[in-house]
């Protein structure tokens, strides 16, 4: 899944699950779109209702307005004759926003280990994402090591170690309260000594408004770069899809402080639609790497704009 040719059946299964999960709970756009325009004609009222649906999906006011104004232009040109045309227009607009951020993560080996630094707010799912990512990387034939950089939260190290055991991957850890930069630096040395391909570094969750803790992350980044200028090769923000507009602030602040190179969106299996992804793609040009739609490791897959939009626009039971 990292730039290699993947098995097509695995991918299809994921799209099906994505479609089913995203539409679990209340069925979303397809069903609703048909209901919006019972007579089949599209007018301003239908667009108003659609606007509400987008807002309820956490797309945010600004991005919703962009999408709706695209559609209003089409409506004025009399291009939106029926529900199918509306769906196509909406699809084009959503893809237009998301396609630029669809850039899968590619692992290169520039001599030392490829370092992925995971960051995010408390409870976003960093440790769990590392567990799943480690499993994927191993399946793809990379050697992997984990660095227990969350030295603050009680039992965070043990949680990562549990994932390490599950995937048979080494975990470098120190005692609770240790300097995260030191832990990750040691892990880097260990990874290089053992000729490891990918080092996944966990960090403690922190709110973007806690300046001191954000500085701590900047320090981690500096210290890692001391031995290998190109490291960390990936600074990945883990975002909880059930979050609202603050996720946009999160992305902006973390990007400002660290220069994000990727985003992973977790917990898309709730009834939240993850519309915040659109708001972020609309504002920031940071690649979206993976989306997670469930507890199992295979429920995390590379982000594909088309599939995601399809999943939003097609209900679980139906085909495309």
């Amino acid at each position, binding site marked *: 899944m990292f730039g290699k040719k993947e098995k097509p059946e695995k991918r299809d299964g994921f799209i099906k699950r994505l479609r089913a999960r995203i539409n*679990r*709970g*209340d069925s979303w756009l397809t069903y609703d779109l048909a209901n919006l325009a019972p007579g089949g004609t599209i007018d301003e009222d239908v667009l108003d209702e659609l606007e*509400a649906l987008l*807002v*309820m*999906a*956490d797309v*945010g*006011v600004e991005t919703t307005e962009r999408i709706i104004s695209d559609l209003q232009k089409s409506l004025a040109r009399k291009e939106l004759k029926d529900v199918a045309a509306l769906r196509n227009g909406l699809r084009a607009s959503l893809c237009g926003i998301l396609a630029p951020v669809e850039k899968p993560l590619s692992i290169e080996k520039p001599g030392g280990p490829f370092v992925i630094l995971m960051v995010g*707010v*408390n*409870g*976003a*799912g960093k440790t*769990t994402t590392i567990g799943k990512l480690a499993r994927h990387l191993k399946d793809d034939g990379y050697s992997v090591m984990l660095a227990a950089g969350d030295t*603050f*939260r*009680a*039992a*965070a190290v*043990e*949680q990562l*170690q*549990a*994932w390490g055991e*599950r995937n048979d991957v080494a975990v470098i850890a120190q005692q609770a309260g240790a300097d995260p930069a030191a832990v990750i630096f040691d892990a880097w040395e260990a990874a290089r000594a053992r000729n490891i391909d990918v080092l996944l570094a966990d960090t403690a969750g922190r*709110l*973007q*408004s*806690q*300046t001191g*803790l954000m500085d701590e992350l900047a320090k981690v980044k500096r210290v890692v770069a001391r031995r290998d200028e190109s490291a960390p090769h990936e600074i990945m923000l883990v975002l*909880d899809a*059930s*979050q*609202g*507009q*603050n*996720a946009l*602030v*999160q992305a902006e602040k973390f990007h400002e402080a660290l220069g994000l190179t990727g985003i992973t969106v977790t*917990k898309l*299996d*709730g*009834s*939240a*639609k993850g519309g*915040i992804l659109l708001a972020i793609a609309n504002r920031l040009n940071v690649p979206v790497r993976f989306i997670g739609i469930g507890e199992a490791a295979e429920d995390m897959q590379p982000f594909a704009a088309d599939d995601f939009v399809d999943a939003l626009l097609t209900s679980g039971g139906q085909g495309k």
Partner: protein
Amino acid sequence: MFDNLSGRLSDAARQLTGKGRLTESNIKDTLRQVRLALLEADVALPVVKTFIERIRVRALGEEVGKSLTPGQALVRIIHDELVQILGSESAPLDLRAQPPVVILLAGLQGAGKTTTAAKLAKRLIDREKKKVMLVSVDVHRPAAILQLQTLAGEVGALHCASDAGEKPTRIVDRALDEARRSHADVLIVDTAGRLHIDSGMMQEVVEVHEAAQPLETLFVVDSMAGQDAVNAATAFNESLSLTGTVLTKADGDAKGGVALSVVEVTGKPIRFMGIGEKIDALEAFHPDRMASRILGMGDVLSLVEEIEHTVSKEKTEKLAKKLKKGRGFDLSDLRDQLEQMMNMGGLATMLDKLPMPGNVNPAALADSANEQKIRRQIAIINSMTPSERRFPKTINGSRKKRIANGSGQQIQDVNRLLKQHLQMERMMKKVSRGGMKKFMRGMPGGGMPPGFR
């Protein structure tokens, strides 16, 4: 939190000037602004709609009093409505039952249940002198049980050990037995995070709920949660008949509109807010104050209450006695004050609660009064001899130089501290009696000592 919401509301209200009466046409734009502000604050759309409609009905035809501008009148209506939704008074936990009283925490993954369990235990131990036992029935997330066990040790609560291979209901039965046997007053049950649409997991928590028979069932929700939080809250409320909500991570910059949504759909009060990384960063939720905070009136009351708790009574009384006797406020008293400020979780936490005019940048203000600065000031005082602390006037040029060297600061820093102390001393003389509480109240702006503004 809530900053931008208040900003937008006051902007919207300002546009409403020079009109004697609120009418459909002159409030239309303002209400649109309010609607957008609430949506951007992640208040759920259906909740926003009903809220706006209520405001519109109440505002129409409202005579604007002479002392108010129309904008202010509208803000007052919005404030009243906010208070009405959030509840008009803070709702303490109901612990009046035969012990062990059970408190159950439930919510989505990553909401902060385990941390809240520990903070709640700490609060009940420290403030209500309860004997608290913690138990985790999270058999799903790796190391969740260990996390709670570690935190229980930190806050001085009992912990009922559980095993990831055990059935959650069995753990609850065992914990109830153990709590009875060890005479615990309160048993806090931490559950695994789950999605409200995962019927298997919801069934599990319903069974845990039945086995535990909790007096309080609290929904733990992330203040950054989005529109979907209402669905989660509704589902949890239907399955578990919640008794309240805990709003976590409220110290961030999320606007926290979820507070409004959850209260509206569950009809149950918000009991507490998590406001920081520290284990005692859990605060009672005061709806009236929160509504004021949304509208930018600050939260002075909350601060005063916090100060009453944190400021050691003994020291305050000692100081009061000393002042009464007519002896001055010396530098070791200033050091006590500074140390108490640090204990309150840093000035940033305090500043958050103070009303800020829109043109003040809270970040810059917090920076000018940060913990590091206070720590340095304490270092300066520590570098003085006891007699210098008692009689600051004796500190001459060469003493200043020695103190500056001793504390690793510049002479100017020593001068600044001495000047600040002099100002405080003058103010203290005005305080005839009473402790910190009166002292704080007597100060303009809600209680920052001079030199910190």
